[in-house]
């Protein structure tokens, strides 16, 4: 949820990078969004299009990499990907684990001119 305020935050980062690098127009913004981040990509793209109207990022494209939820099994230390939140360890079938990554919500790259 809150894709609109997230889109606004992305635009703020883009504007900051354009200024710092003395560039005038954003072409593509690359994002990394973990599956735990509860963001709906299509909704985000829609909101981004709205907030970037009449800005230096108007018309720019959002490229979204969805990163998986990685866990470490507390029983056998296997690192595995959580396909569903109720998945178990593929090696020992244990269900006690710690999440290592999967809630990222980052701008990782900008293509601009």
């Amino acid at each position, binding site marked *: 949820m809150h894709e609109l305020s997230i889109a606004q935050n992305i635009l703020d*980062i883009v504007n900051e990078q354009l200024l710092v*690098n003395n560039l005038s127009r954003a072409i593509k913004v690359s*994002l990394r969004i973990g599956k*735990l981040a509860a963001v709906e990509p299509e909704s985000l793209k829609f909101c981004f299009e709205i907030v970037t109207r009449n800005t230096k990022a108007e018309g720019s494209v959002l490229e979204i990499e969805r990163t998986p939820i990685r866990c470490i099994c507390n029983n056998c230390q296997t690192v595995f990907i959580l396909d569903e939140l109720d998945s178990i360890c593929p090696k020992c079938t244990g269900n*006690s684990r710690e999440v290592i990554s999967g809630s990222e919500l980052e*701008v990782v*790259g900008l*293509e*601009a001119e």
Partner: protein
Amino acid sequence: MKIEVVKDILEANDTIAEENRRLFKENGVLVFNLMSSPGAGKTTLLEKSISTLKDRIKIGVVEGDIQTELDAKRISKKGVEVVQINTGGACHLDGNMVKQAIKKLYLKNIDLLFIENVGNLVCPAEFRVGEDMKIMILSITEGDDKPLKYPLMFHESKVLVINKIDLLPYCDCELKRLRQNALKINPGLNIFEMSCKTETGLDNWYNWLVKKVEETKGKNPTDKRNITDIQKNR
């Protein structure tokens, strides 16, 4: 031109949440972010907890609602420090709202701060406000499938309070299935089952709160009596 960036989109909120957390730690305050659907029993649980424990641990409350000071007024009657946040429309509390609210609290005089979040089973899970842990309440009337339908809330919480167990005979909710579903999503969940209305199952919760506060203070409990004994001596 391609520029490499690594910038957290929610950095602004997380930075403020971390500032809040540092302030809490400096003042020795244990902080719980209490979340649930509207009407699950957050404020009632706080009222009961304060009534029973306020002579034992110093409790403060930050109340979050879209509108009104109804909850802050209820808590205020219990004689503890409370601040009301009205979000005006925002469906969750964020780091900055809590930052502004805690300016009105005397943190040095608080052992345990409850941040009662806006009633919402979705958004509060996504935003840190500086808490030590997220605690959620689910009531029996909401149904036993909610952990599967709203997984993030259950996944992000360390504690689940199942409330209104007195209504089990009148609902289709199966307690065993609810526990199973919750533990599927989060195997490490610490679960308390209670009815705030009939005051069943609250002792375990009170004892756990006291234990957590004493752990934060970093010393052994000076009062070895359990909650039932404290209540008998009143």
